[in-house]
C-alpha cells in the first residue's frame, strides 16, 4: 500500500514535471511561442496610448469581460486567457499593467487585434477586451515539417478539415494543432508539439513540429538536505539498466512511467522522479533527469518480546522468563550493485531456539547474465524454514475433526528467474529440503491421526512422509513458468494467463525419492463487450479456468495435490475434497458489470475431481478421512473493491454458505 501510494505521488510529480519542463502539450499558449506571425503594429499603438497616461494612476478593476472572443477546440477559453492577467476583479490596476495585459494577449498570436475598453461602474471600472480574429486566405496545401513519426495521412486529414472553412482562421489552425498534437499524445510522445505555422498568407501552410528527441539521460542524486549531486552510493548502471530511454529516440510518457516503476521496484530509493526538460541548446530535444533519493540500505532490527502480565501478587510479572523475538537484517545494495542480502531469525525462546526457530536468509543477484540481458535474469539463493498445516490431513464433510499435521520444511535453494515481460517469467532451480511432519503437540509423527470412537487419537492413518521416520530429505529440480498477458480494462483483467509448474525429484536422499510432479493451469478472461471510450464500467467478462496435475513416482503426502479450497473448488475447505496424484479442476465464471458501483457481479460453477487417483496415494488419505474425491460448487457474488462477497452452494452436501473473501479467485 505504502509503495503504491508513493508511486502514485511520483507519477503525479512526473506529469507535472513533464508539463513544466516541456512547455506542455495542450493549450499552454502563454509560454509557447506559437503563431509567430503576431502583428506588432496594433500593439505599438496601444503602448503609445498607454504612455500618455500617467504610470502612477491606478484604478480599481471591478470586472473583466471579453467581446468577440471565438471559442472552439484548441483555442484557449476566456478563463484561460484571463488567468495570468493583471486585470483581475478586485485588483488595483495601472495603465501600464493594462497595456502589459494587452501585449500578452496579443502575443498569443491568435488575434489580429485586441482592444481594451475601460468603463466606469460604481466605485471602479470594468475592463472589456475586444478581440479581432486573424483571417488568411483559404488553405490549399498543408505540410508538416520536422516530423519523423507522423503518418502521412495526418496532413491530409488536416487539409480535409481546413477546406471546410473558406478562410484560414485561428480556429482552423487550432484544429490542425489539435489533430497533430492529439496524435502525439495518443502515442505518449508528450513533447510532440507544433512550434509554429507559416505560409498562411499563401494558402500553403507549413506546420513546424518538434518531437522531443532524447538528448541525454542524467542521474541526479538528492541528499537529505535536498542538495543535488551526480554521485550516489548506488552504481549508476544499476539504475541505467532499468531505463527504457535511449538517446536519439523520442521521449515517451510510457517510457517515463515504466522507468519510474522499474526503478522503484529496486527498493533502493525513497523517491524517484523522471524530469524531462527541453535541451538548452536545441529546443527540439529533451534532456531527461532521473532524480533519485536513496534510502538507507542497511537495516538491522532486534525485537524482543517479554510478556508482562499481572502476577499472583497483583504486581506486574513476566509471563515467562524466556526471551523471544526476532533479529532481522538486510542490505539491499551490496557494493552499490543492487544485490541484496536479507536475513531474519525469530524464536520464542532465545535460550533454546531449536524449539521453534524460524529463519530465512536470502541473497538476490539481479542481472546475473550482465546488464544487457533482456530477460533481467536474476539469481536467488536462500536458506529457509517454514511450518505449514498440511491440507492433506483434512476431514471430509462428515468426518470428525481431524488432528492437524504440521509440515516443517527446512532447506536451501538456488533459483534463476528470467523475466520475459513484466508479468511473464520462468523460474528454475535446485531445492534441497528436509521435511518433518509433526502432530499438534510438535512431536515428530509418521502417520496421520484420527479420533477413534473412545475419543483417543489413534495414529494409524496414512503415512505422513516417504520414509517411515517422519523425516524426509529430498533434492529436486523445480521449474515454474508464468505466462501472463492480461491487461486491465476499467479495473478488471482481460487476457490469458497460464501457469506451468514442475518438480523433478532427483532420487537423492534416504529412500531415493524419485518423482515427477507437473501441473498446468490456464485461465482466460474473455471480454464479451468492449466498453465505450468514456465508460468507467468494467466490461462483461467470461472467465474460463482449468487446471490439471499429475504426479508419478514417490509421492509423500505433503507433496500430494489437494482439491478444494477458495483457489481450487470454492465452497469447500482447503483439501476437503481430496488429496491425490492426479487432478482436474475446471471453473467458469460470468462477470457482469453493476451500474453505479462500477463493479462486477458474478456467478460461477466449479468442479474438481481426483480422477480416482486418491487410492494411489499411500494410505489413501482421501478415503481415510472420508472425503469425496470430487465435487462441484456453484454460486454467485459481488465484487466490492478488493472484497468479494459470495454465496456458494456445495454440491456434495447440498448446502449453501456465504463467504467474504479478499482478492481474486483466479
Amino acid at each position, binding site marked *: 500500500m505504502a509503495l503504491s501510494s508513493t508511486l502514485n505521488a511520483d507519477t503525479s510529480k512526473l506529469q507535472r514535471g513533464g508539463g513544466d519542463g516541456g512547455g506542455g502539450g495542450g493549450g499552454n499558449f502563454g509560454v509557447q511561442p506559437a503563431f509567430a506571425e503576431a502583428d506588432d503594429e496594433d500593439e505599438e499603438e496601444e503602448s503609445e496610448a498607454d504612455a500618455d497616461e500617467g504610470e502612477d494612476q491606478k484604478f480599481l478593476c471591478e470586472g473583466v469581460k471579453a467581446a468577440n472572443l471565438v471559442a472552439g477546440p484548441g483555442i484557449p477559453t476566456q478563463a484561460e486567457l484571463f488567468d495570468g492577467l493583471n486585470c483581475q476583479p478586485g485588483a488595483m490596476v495601472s495603465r501600464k499593467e493594462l497595456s502589459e495585459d494587452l501585449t500578452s494577449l496579443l502575443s498569443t498570436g491568435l488575434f489580429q487585434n485586441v482592444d481594451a475598453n475601460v468603463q466606469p461602474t460604481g466605485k471602479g471600472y470594468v475592463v472589456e477586451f475586444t478581440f479581432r480574429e486573424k483571417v488568411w486566405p483559404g488553405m490549399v496545401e498543408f505540410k508538416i515539417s520536422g516530423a519523423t513519426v507522423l503518418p502521412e495521412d495526418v496532413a491530409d486529414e488536416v487539409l480535409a478539415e481546413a477546406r471546410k472553412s473558406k478562410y484560414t482562421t485561428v480556429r482552423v489552425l487550432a484544429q490542425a494543432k489539435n489533430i497533430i498534437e492529439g496524435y502525439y499524445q495518443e502515442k505518449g510522445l508528450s513533447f510532440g508539439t507544433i512550434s509554429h505555422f507559416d505560409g498562411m498568407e499563401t494558402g500553403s501552410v507549413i506546420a513546424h513540429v518538434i518531437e522531443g528527441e532524447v538528448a541525454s539521460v542524467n542521474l541526479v542524486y538528492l541528499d537529505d538536505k535536498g542538495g543535488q549531486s551526480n554521485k550516489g552510493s548506488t552504481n549508476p548502471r544499476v539504475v541505467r539498466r532499468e531505463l527504457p530511454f535511449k538517446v536519439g529516440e523520442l521521449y515517451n510518457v510510457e517510457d517515463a512511467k*515504466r522507468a519510474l516503476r522499474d526503478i522503484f521496484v529496486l527498493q533502493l530509493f525513497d523517491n524517484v522522479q523522471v524530469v524531462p526538460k527541453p535541451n538548452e541548446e536545441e529546443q527540439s530535444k529533451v534532456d531527461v533527469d532521473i532524480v533519485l533519493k536513496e534510502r538507507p540500505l542497511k537495516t538491522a532490527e532486534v525485537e524482543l518480546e517479554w510478556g508482562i502480565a499481572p502476577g499472583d501478587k497483583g504486581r506486574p510479572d513476566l509471563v515467562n522468563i524466556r526471551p523471544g523475538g526476532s533479529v532481522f537484517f538486510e542490505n539491499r545494495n551490496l557494493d552499490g550493485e543492487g544485490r541484496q542480502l536479507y536475513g531474519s531469525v525469530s524464536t520464542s525462546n532465545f535460550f533454546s531456539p531449536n524449539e521453534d526457530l524460524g529463519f530465512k536468509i536470502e541473497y538476490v543477484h539481479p542481472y546475473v547474465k550482465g546488464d544487457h540481458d533482456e530477460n533481467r535474469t536474476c539469481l536467488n539463493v536462500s536458506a529457509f524454514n517454514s511450518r505449514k498445516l498440511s491440507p492433506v490431513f483434512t476431514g471430509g464433510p*462428515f*468426518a470428525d475433526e481431524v488432528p492437524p499435521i504440521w509440515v516443517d520444511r527446512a532447506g536451501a535453494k538456488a533459483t534463476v528467474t528470467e523475466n*520475459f*515481460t*513484466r*508479468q*511473464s517469467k*520462468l523460474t528454475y532451480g535446485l531445492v534441497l529440503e528436509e521435511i518433518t511432519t509433526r502432530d499438534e503437540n510438535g512431536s515428530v509423527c509418521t502417520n496421520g491421526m*484420527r479420533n*477413534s*470412537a473412545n475419543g483417543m487419537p*489413534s495414529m*494409524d492413518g496414512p503415512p505422513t512422509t516417504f520414509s517411515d521416520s517422519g523425516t524426509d530429505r529430498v533434492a529436486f529440480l523445480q*521449474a515454474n*513458468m508464468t*505466462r501472463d*498477458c*492480461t*491487461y486491465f480494462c476499467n479495473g478488471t483483467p482481460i*487476457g*490469458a494467463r*497460464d501457469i*506451468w509448474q*514442475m518438480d*523433478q525429484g532427483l532420487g537423492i536422499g534416504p529412500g531415493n525419492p*524419485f*518423482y*515427477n510432479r*507437473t501441473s*498446468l493451469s490456464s485461465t482466460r478472461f474473455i471480454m464479451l463487450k468492449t466498453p465505450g471510450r468514456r465508460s468507467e464500467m468494467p466490461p462483461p467478462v467470461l472467465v474460463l479456468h482449468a487446471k490439471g496435475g*499429475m504426479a*508419478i*513416482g*514417490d*509421492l509423500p503426502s505433503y507433496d500430494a495435490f489437494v482439491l478444494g479450497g477458495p483457489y481450487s473448488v470454492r465452497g469447500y475447505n482447503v483439501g476437503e475434497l481430496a488429496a491425490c*496424484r492426479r487432478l482436474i479442476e475446471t471453473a467458469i465464471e460470468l462477470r457482469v458489470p453493476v451500474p453505479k458501483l462500477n463493479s462486477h457481479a458474478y456467478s460461477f460453477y466449479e468442479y474438481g475431481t481426483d480422477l480416482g487417483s486418491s*487410492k*494411489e*496415494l*499411500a*494410505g*489413501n488419505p482421501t*478415503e*481415510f*478421512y*472420508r472425503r469425496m474425491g470430487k465435487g462441484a460448487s456453484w454460486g454467485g457474488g459481488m465484487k466490492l473493491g478488493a472484497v468479494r462477497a459470495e454465496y456458494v452452494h456445495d454440491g*456434495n*452436501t*447440498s448446502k449453501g454458505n456465504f463467504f467474504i473473501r479478499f482478492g481474486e479467485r483466479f
Partner: protein
Amino acid sequence: MEKTPADQVEDFEDGSEEFDEDEYDEDEEFTDDDGSEEDAELVEASQEVVAAALKSITKQEAPAAPQTEIPIAALSASASAPAAQDVAPEAKATPSVKPSKPELPALPAKPVPKPAPKPEVTDPNAWKGISVFPQATIASIQSSIGKLQKESQGKKDLTIMLLGKNGVGKSSTANSLFGEKVFNVSAFQSNAAVKPAMVSKSAAGFTLSVIDTPGLLDGDSVNEASLDMISEFLQDKTVDVVVYVDRLDGYRVTKIDQKIMEAITNLFGPALWSIGMFVLTHGQVAPPEGHTYSHFVEQRSSQLQAAARACEATETVPVVVVENGSRCATNKAGEKILPDETLWVSNLVTRLVDVAVQTSTPALEHDPFIQEADVYAKKKRWMIIPLFLLNAFIVRPLLTRQIKLDPDFN
C-alpha cells in the same frame, strides 16, 4: 451424502451401540465358543467358564460319550477341561443324537477309517467337527454335497470366502460351518484374524475350504490394507462363493457399508455378486417392536440386496440368517433353529451349494489386472524421465515462444 449432522450423530450412536454389543458378544463367545487355555485365563470370563463347565457336567449324564466312535479319537486325545468345554455348547444339542453308521452312508466313511489306523494322531485336515452336527443336519449337508457333486461334474471341493466388517462374526460363521473351532474369534481386529487365512477340512472325499479375512472396517473407513492383503492372498486360489457377512441387527446399511461393498466390487469386479451371498449373523435377535421376525429379516435382506444392486450386482443376492452363538435354540432333533424355525445350518449349506452350482459365471479367480492400488506408481515409474523431458524440452520452449509472441502490455 444426504445426511444431516443429526444423522451423523445418530450414526455415531449406532456405532457405539454396536460397539457395546460387540464387547458383550466377545465375552459370550470367549466362554461359549473358545474354550482355549488363553481364554480361560480371562478373569472376567472365568465365571461363565465355570458356569459352562457346570452345564456340561450336568449334561454329562446323557452325553457321557455322545460323540460315538468317530471323533472320539481326537477328542479323547485332548480330553482336558477346556476340550470338554469346547464341546459343551454342542453337548446340549447332542444328547438326543444317536448317530449310527447306516444313516451316514458316505460321510463318516472317511473319518472312520482315519482314526482307525492312527487313533492317536489327528489328521489336521479331517473334518471332525461335522460329526457334532445333529443327525438331521448331517443328512442335509450330505444331500447338499451330493447335489453339488451331481450338478458340477463331480466337484469335490467348495471354497467359500467370508468378507465383512470387523466383529460381525466371520470367524464364528466359519467355525459354525465346520462345527469346530478353526478360527480365533474376537470382536477386535488386534487379536482376531489380522491376515486372511484358509482352512480346508475334508470328510468323505469332500473338501470344504473357508477363507476367513480380516475385517474391512478401519475406524470408520474401508481398511485398504485388509483389501490389499485379501487381494494378495487370493492370487493362487479359486473361490466358489463369496459370503458377505453382516449382522442381522445392524438395522441399516450405512454409508460405510456401502463403501465397503463398493471397495470389494472394485477389487474383484461386479462378477463378485453373481457368486455372492449375504450371511446375517446374530439371527436370534428380537425384532424391533411392531415388527415380526420374518418382516425384520425381509427388511434387512432387501436393504443389503439394494446395496449390492448399487454395486452392479445383476442378480438377487441370496440372504441367509445364522446364529453362531452357543445359546442358539434347537429343535427336538437338536438342530439349531432361528426364531422362525429355520434350520439355519442346513439352510446355509444348501444355499452355499446353490450359489456354487447355479452360477453360470466361472468361480472367482484372482484377476491379475485388478490389482491393488499402485501406491508408489511402481509400474508408471518409467514415465518419470519422459515426463521430465517433455516438460523441459517441449512444454517450456513452447510456452516461452508463446510469451515472446504475446503482446506486452507493459
